[in-house]
């Protein structure tokens, strides 16, 4: 399978000496839905800036669908659709003007651009707003406008830099559905986000970047597999005596609630058996923390400790 993105030894040193990227290697396969995670200032936006040619690299190579950024910059640009972190459209232009103009920059005729504008603005629920000035849109609409704008030239690789920041949960879910749909239609997607459940829900592969280096690059499944212990919150029917659990570490939160740390290998059956034997009924159960969030924090901390020791 072709690589949608292939980055080798990417380094970026800003004027003033700040080293933003220290040799990033990354491969994203065609058709993938890839999450690039990292704390603030880790180098995510710099990496995206270099891929989309807004930032000049210091060293290394970037290839998009086999085209080298240094020798085939126009082909690279033609394949990429970028949804940046901050709103960067002209606030005084109308929704339709913004997307049609963007298509024009990619060589799409105005007639075809208008047809595509109707298609994508409709899919993203913005067609009714096509004659409104961008500044009058709500935050969520502005985010969707940036996605529509990035798709008008029908790129094969869509890069989204925190696309759901500040978007309410209902809208976020509709954006997830839309992104999943276009991914299924063949668009490779790279996503950076601070909502880790978003990455867990959408992405098949994941890269974690910290202090300008990739510290983890694997499948979402194998990454989540690294998590050995999960914490569950159990809501119990009230009983006269406190539950006594020996097969796992349990904490009593109140009369009706306990928290249980369960090793993956152990499973939950023994906990349920113990509670049943004591005549305690479990009403409901949920994960305490986002699993990926836990892992993310652990990986970043481990990476930093290793570097300090070195």
């Amino acid at each position: 399978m072709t690589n949608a993105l292939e980055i080798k030894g990417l380094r970026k040193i800003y004027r003033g000496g700040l080293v933003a990227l220290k040799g990033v290697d990354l491969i994203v396969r065609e058709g993938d839905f890839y999450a690039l995670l990292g704390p603030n200032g880790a180098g995510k936006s710099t990496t995206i800036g270099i891929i989309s040619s807004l930032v000049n690299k210091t060293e290394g190579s970037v290839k998009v669908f086999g085209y080298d950024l240094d020798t085939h910059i126009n082909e690279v640009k033609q394949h990429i659709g970028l949804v940046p972190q901050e709103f960067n459209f002209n606030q005084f232009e109308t929704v339709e003007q913004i997307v049609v103009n963007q298509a024009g920059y990619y060589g799409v005729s105005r007639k075809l651009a208008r047809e595509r504008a109707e298609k994508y603005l409709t899919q993203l629920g913005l067609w009714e707003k096509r004659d409104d000035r961008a500044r009058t849109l709500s935050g969520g609409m502005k985010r969707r406008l940036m996605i529509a704008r990035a798709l008008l030239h029908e790129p094969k690789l869509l890069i989204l830099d925190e696309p759901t920041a500040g978007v309410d949960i209902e809208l976020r879910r509709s954006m997830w559905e839309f992104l999943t749909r276009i991914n299924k239609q063949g668009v490779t997607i790279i996503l950076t986000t601070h909502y880790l459940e978003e990455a867990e829900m959408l992405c098949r592969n994941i890269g974690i970047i910290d202090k300008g280096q990739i510290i983890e690059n694997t499948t979402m499944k194998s990454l989540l597999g690294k998590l050995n212990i999960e914490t569950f919150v159990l809501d119990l029917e009230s009983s006269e005596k406190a539950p006594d659990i020996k097969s796992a570490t349990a904490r009593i939160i109140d009369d009706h609630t306990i928290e249980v740390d369960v090793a993956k290998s152990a499973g939950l059956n023994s906990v349920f058996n113990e509670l049943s034997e004591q005549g305690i009924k479990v009403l409901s159960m949920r994960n305490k923390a986002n699993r990926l969030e836990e892992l993310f924090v652990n990986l970043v901390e481990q990476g930093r400790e290793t570097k300090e020791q070195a």
Partner: protein
Amino acid sequence: MKNPIHFTALKTIWIKECTRFLRIWVQTLVPPAITMTLYFIIFGSLIGSRIGEMGGVSYMEFIVPGLIMMSVITNAYSNVAASFFSAKFQRNLEEMLVAPVSNITIILGYVGGGVARSLIVAVIVTIVSGFFVELNIQSYGMIIITVLLTATLFALGGLLNAMFAKTFDDISIIPTFVLTPLTYLGGVFYSITLLPDFWQAVSQVNPIIYMVNGFRYGFIGVSDIAPTVAIGVLVIFNLAFFVLAWWLLRRGTGTRT
């Protein structure tokens, strides 16, 4: 897309630029008409009638070409400076930078917008001047060539200014402290032959002298500077500004990190 000029993108930038200044026509097209009307009334009719002839024509007839050129210079410059800087400031310039649009296309698109606005203003001011004086035209060719070269040059100047600018103040410094003095001292209101020899020599360094005189030659057939020299100077400045703008954009000065 191997061509240095991408025509669909060029058309898009040009339409976008024209839409911008037409949308805010009260700020872009009306003020020059009002300002020039006041110039015609005060300097042309009231004061001019006491001055008598200059360059072999009435003072009003003498200043009209200079005032049209002044509008062209100001509007070409301010259109591109304001538009390009605000695209940089709002970061919507990135829309073009991430797309396969060549630097030459970006320059031509913005300059084309500035030239379009300045030509519309030139037509408006010429129509207004028709209420004050009957204009005789000696050379259409000279008028068209001079106005186009001047509009292009100052549109390029505005673009260069906007590339370097970091704040909105930076795009008003050059017009206030460089462009306005040069225009007023550029022979709009007087013939440089009235100046002492020393100041006549100094005036030769002012590029606006060549534009105003070349343009005036097209109307009244009289000029302080030979028309061929005027066009030659304009072409050289245009080439120099274009190459500089292209080089800066390619380098990413003020546009890329």
